[in-house]
């Protein structure tokens, strides 16, 4: 059957799974940079939220320092959640998510690539800006690297965990609040370990223990979250 011959011809040019995932990642990064001004929004939100706490409590750095880890983490959590809404939204609307599901390639890998792109575009910038706001909340100089490391790890776990909720609510209108309600209770362990790690960093103590627990959560999310997200996407495409 000559149609089978056509299939055979195309099989030899099939790119490997990793290359396909890289393609999906590259596409999302390129798309984000075409609309550069939108990349700033989660960062601006983060800074504004952290500024709200001194405004509503006290300008005394001495009194802000103890609550600085909590403020940074809550602000990072909320900013990541807001940005998660857009993880799958556009692709679901213009049909590219459907094409991903029909590509014959592993949807799990493709969604992992999209989530990784989301982290690079949102989580990493947040982690890099966090030291600045940390200083504004009284964090000492030696803790800044610790702040970057802890928030970068935590936002990675958050992007992965949040991708599940984003995939489940992709067809729902005005799903922003629902997505947050679904993800926040599940994100509590990330918050607890991450904030504790940042707190120890600010106190100039070793933050290895909570960071290791946080890393364990990241590993768990890396293995399970894209699978769950792929299942959720298939359900929403039915």
């Amino acid at each position, binding site marked *: 059957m000559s*149609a089978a011959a056509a299939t055979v011809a195309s099989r030899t*040019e099939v790119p490997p799974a990793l290359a396909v995932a890289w393609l999906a990642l590259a*596409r999302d990064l390129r798309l984000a940079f075409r609309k550069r001004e939108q990349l700033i929004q989660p960062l601006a939100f983060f800074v504004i939220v952290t500024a709200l706490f001194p405004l509503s409590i006290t300008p005394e750095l001495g009194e802000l320092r103890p609550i600085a880890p909590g403020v940074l983490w809550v602000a990072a959590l909320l900013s990541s959640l807001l940005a998660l809404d857009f993880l799958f939204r556009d692709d679901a609307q213009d049909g590219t998510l*459907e094409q991903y599901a029909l590509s014959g390639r592993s949807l799990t890998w*493709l969604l992992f690539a999209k989530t990784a792109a989301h982290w690079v575009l949102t989580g990493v910038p947040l982690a890099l800006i966090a030291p600045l706001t940390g200083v504004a909340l009284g964090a000492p100089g030696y803790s800044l690297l610790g702040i970057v490391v802890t928030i970068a790890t935590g936002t990675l776990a958050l992007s992965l965990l949040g991708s599940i909720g984003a995939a489940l609510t992709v067809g729902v209108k005005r799903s922003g609040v629902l997505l947050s309600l679904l993800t926040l209770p599940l994100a509590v362990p990330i918050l607890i370990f991450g904030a504790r790690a940042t707190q120890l960093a600010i106190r100039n103590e070793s933050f290895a223990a909570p960071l290791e627990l946080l890393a364990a959560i990241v590993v768990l999310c890396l293995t399970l979250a894209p699978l769950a997200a792929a299942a959720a996407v298939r359900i929403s495409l039915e």
Partner: protein
Amino acid sequence: MLRGLALEVSAGQMLQVVGKNGAGKTSLLRALCGMLYLEEGRVLWDGRDVRADLPSFHASLTYLGHEPPLKADLTVDENLRYWVGLRRRVTLPQRASALETAGIAGLAERLVRTLSAGQKRRVALAALTLFAAPLWLLDEPTTHLDASGHQLVAQLIEQHVRAGGLAIAALHHDIPVSAQLVRRLELSAT
């Protein structure tokens, strides 16, 4: 909800699915893709149930839905690269030649948001030729196209089918494909 359907398409045939709006043409195509769960009934490809190995079934088909799945902020060439590239390595000359076949040769570097609906449809048709999949599932492939566009769609389908491929297309009206290659299926809404 679809009920009471039995159909068979062989290599070298095109199945034209007609029916009023809401009769279920889109649902049928999506069910044939394996995307809709069938409570009863099966889809067989090459004699095997597609659910046994969905990825390789998907690798043998191309599905075009109502709207071309293009990213407005990317160029035409970038769109083709990221879309077809998921399944098949295609070089720049191959992409350029596909655009030429689709009648939009000069548009490779244009951002998709600057294109008209008809031009976007032609980009999707270019991708269709690049995928080189044996089974084509097309939902209203002639939407937004002018007369020469209709001609193009008919030509592409006829070439594909004569080369041994299969096409299942939901079409409101007939297109100029040789009658001996076409079979019709009419869906009625109850």
